[in-house]
């Protein structure tokens, strides 16, 4: 007890420092002058960026809640038609990159697309005046909600399924109906997990570039890119992304506040098997509809469109290169997932056992990486890595006449590091919300029995948190698989991934040819999602 907190403090602060280096690099741009570009932005586009970003946040928060929470509740407490496969199928949209989904939906629903063309043929040209524009803030909200709700679903499902079971049984025996016990017991207890899920969805929304760019919705991210690329002004672009970070800072504070307001520690994470109530007839069908709708629009429709393109209009078909692309994507995603989860466990655990406020705050900082648009993050990583490379190279050259070249920034190290910075928040959210459901009294009893901190971590927490760890693993894995902007900037020579291939086709306006690599991303993501989902089932039962 005497030594270990100090050790933890050191480790935590070290990790957090390394993981937040890119953020500090960004902050160092605060005082750089970008000429009069700020004035220009305030006069022209900045109000739009702010308004659109806020609208998106409100919309996506509501959308992901509406889609994710009811489905999670139904799946964890009821049995109905298809509930067995819906259970994992609800995760499928995770494997669908938002920008790919945006291509398919515009292809289907735009003025020139098949849906509106068919409607015009049937009802006359006037119908298109009434047809809602898919490329709009509203369209973007729907799109993100259908692609990102799995975060809310996954995190709230593990909360519903695990700790709250006992309290629920009690409430039921005290005569509360299922509806009432959901609202009064389960929902408040799962609140930290639900909010963690929404926070993830919102951060991802704010950092997205591909989809909003395609939809012509001006957000902070498109603004950052435009300032950098169009005006050639890195300083103002970075300062814009700091404003975005401030947005997210507020978001994280709100989330933390909500956790403080309500702290529940459920005891029986490994309690009795769930007694799921059977729903049949019309109620079963309704439950099915609630759970199938998100899959339909988040996964089936866009994959269907991709498949259609691949089969009918793609110019390039399958070739052996795809094996290599898939392997590259898979191995990167796997390595990063493991790294990010290990780091998250260390940080989350340090925060839990240390009374030190600095630790808690440093861990909070580590979340920020997720909200930085990939392009900006990649640049913020290039700068310190290049400096480090230079230092190492100089050292070796002076002492041994060996040039080490770009040891870090020119290799996969840069990519894995960048992904870990970016997705640490994802694994942290999941691990932290898992850890929060373990009673501190358990730690105390273990300590009285002479267990060390490491012992408590290894023998009590980790087994109890298996679900949360697996969740974190899946989420990071799939995130890396889909990731585009960082990969595009930081990868080494002759190293392409599926998402790179999909992007290169799409950016060349060959959407049909982007179909196959995109489908492969989905497939590669699917397999581990299903396997891990089954594993989670077992650890519950």
């Amino acid at each position: 007890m005497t030594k270990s907190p100090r050790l933890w403090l050191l480790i935590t602060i070290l990790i957090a420092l390394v993981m937040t280096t890119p953020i500090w690099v960004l902050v160092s741009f605060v005082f750089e002058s970008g000429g009069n570009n700020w004035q220009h932005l305030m006069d022209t586009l900045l109000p739009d960026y702010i308004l659109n970003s806020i609208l998106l946040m409100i919309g996506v928060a509501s959308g992901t809640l509406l889609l994710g929470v009811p489905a999670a509740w139904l799946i964890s407490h009821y049995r109905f038609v298809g509930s067995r496969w819906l259970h994992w199928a609800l995760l499928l949209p995770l494997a669908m990159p938002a920008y790919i989904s945006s291509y398919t939906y515009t292809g289907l629903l735009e003025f020139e697309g098949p849906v509106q063309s068919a409607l015009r043929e049937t009802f006359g040209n006037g119908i298109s005046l009434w047809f809602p524009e898919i490329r709009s803030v509203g369209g973007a909200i729907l799109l993100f909600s259908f692609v990102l709700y799995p975060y809310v679903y996954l995190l709230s499902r593990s909360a519903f399924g695990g700790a709250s079971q006992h309290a629920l049984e009690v409430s039921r025996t005290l005569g509360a109906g299922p509806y009432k016990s959901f609202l009064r017991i389960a929902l408040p207890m799962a609140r930290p997990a639900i909010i963690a899920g929404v926070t993830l969805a919102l951060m991802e929304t704010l950092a997205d570039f591909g989809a909003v760019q395609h939809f012509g919705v001006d957000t902070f991210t498109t603004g950052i890119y435009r300032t950098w690329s169009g005006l050639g002004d890195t300083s103002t672009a970075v300062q814009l992304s700091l404003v975005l970070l401030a947005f997210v800072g507020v978001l994280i504070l709100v989330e933390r506040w909500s956790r403080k307001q309500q702290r529940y520690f459920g005891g029986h994470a490994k309690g009795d098997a769930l007694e799921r109530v059977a729903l049949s007839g019309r109620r079963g069908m309704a439950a099915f509809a609630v759970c199938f709708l998100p899959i339909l629009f988040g996964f089936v429709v866009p994959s269907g469109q991709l498949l259609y393109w691949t089969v009918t209009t793609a110019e390039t078909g399958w070739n052996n290169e795809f094996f290599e692309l898939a392997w590259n994507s898979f191995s990167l995603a796997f390595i990063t997932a493991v790294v990010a989860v290990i780091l998250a466990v260390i940080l989350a655990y340090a925060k839990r056992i240390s009374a030190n406020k600095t630790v808690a705050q440093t861990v909070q900082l580590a979340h920020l990486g997720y909200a930085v648009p990939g392009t900006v993050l990649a640049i913020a990583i290039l700068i310190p890595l290049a400096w480090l490379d230079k230092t190492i190279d100089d050292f070796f050259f002076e002492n041994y006449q060996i040039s080490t070249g770009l040891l870090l920034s020119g290799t996969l190290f840069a990519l894995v590091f960048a992904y870990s910075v970016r997705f640490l928040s994802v694994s942290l959210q999941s691990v932290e919300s898992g850890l929060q459901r373990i009673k501190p009294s358990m730690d105390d009893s273990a300590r009285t029995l002479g267990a060390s901190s490491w012992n408590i971590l290894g023998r009590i927490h980790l087994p109890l948190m298996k679900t949360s760890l697996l969740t974190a693993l899946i989420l990071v894995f799939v995130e890396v698989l889909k990731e585009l902007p960082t990969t595009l900037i930081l990868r080494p020579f002759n190293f392409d991934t599926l998402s790179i291939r999909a992007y290169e086709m799409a950016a060349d306006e060959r959407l049909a040819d982007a179909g196959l690599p995109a489908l492969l991303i989905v497939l590669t993501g699917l397999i581990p999602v299903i396997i891990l989902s089954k594993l989670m089932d077992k650890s519950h039962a």
Partner: protein
Amino acid sequence: MKRFNFTLFSTLFMAVTLVMPVHQASAEEVVNVYSARKAQLIKPLLDEFSKESGITVNLITSKADALLKRLESEGRRSPADILITTDAGRLHRAKESGVLKAEIDRELLDKVPANLRDKDNYWLGLTTRARVVVYAKDRVDPKDLSTYEDLADPKWQNKICIRSSNNIYNQSLVASMISHQGEEKTAQWAEGLVKNLARKPKGGDRDQVKAVAAGQCDLAVVNTYYLGQMLNGKDQAQRQAADKVAVFWPNQQDRGTHINVSGIAITKSSKNTANANKLIKFLLSEKSQQWYAETNNEYPVLDGVQVSDTLKSWGAFHSDSLNLSKLGELNPAAVKVMDRAGWR
């Protein structure tokens, strides 16, 4: 659980050691390429080059701005020998930020018309792309069309489609107009154009062609090769859409149609400059030039190269002879003009 962790750790270590040696320097002849051209439009040529010359080509494709940032931060340690972009503005920016060197062989520079290369010989154009007006064959009389300037005329109200001003080709077009007639006139023009738009700017160039075909607008401003790809593609809907429009070459009576280039430069850090020149020579060969003209319907920078039937069908045109470095210099000004005009 303990064993599970152990497995994870060992897998991790194995994976890391397996993946790391991707980057390895060796004694063989190489040339390292940073390309903003997408892999599908450069890799086949690079493979052919390797086969002919025995020189290994290493490739990273990315966005031009990203490659430029990477070159800047890598400095003299950068492994890159070659930078390829799909617009002249970015090459100019690379030159300004000091990551290029002017060591392209004289004989290669001389092959390329003077306005399609840097005046200080830092870069040269490989292919030309023209930004033209396409019109609906059934609704527009080409006699009513004349210049880019004319697109701001109120007679085209609600008739024009164009993509977002985020796009580099729109930025370059506006930069060329600023260069020819000053910022004030261009600003007025941009406002007039925005008033004439049939819909909010969105989608890519192909989408604008589709919108004209579907009747949402009568005119669109697009790069020719997109239309060429649509006409020759497998997608029947796109072929039909492309068939409904025709190409109009703007400003034939005065300065000529706006063009841009995809171009190439040698980086300052290059340690394989001789090989880099060999690669440039290969890309300027008649065979490579023809490949671009046929696969992607881009115009060769060399005279007398065989081009695709699609390109032949559009005929010859008079192109703007503005030195393309100007496009890079005026790009920020162009973006601001478009911002103020409300061109999204």
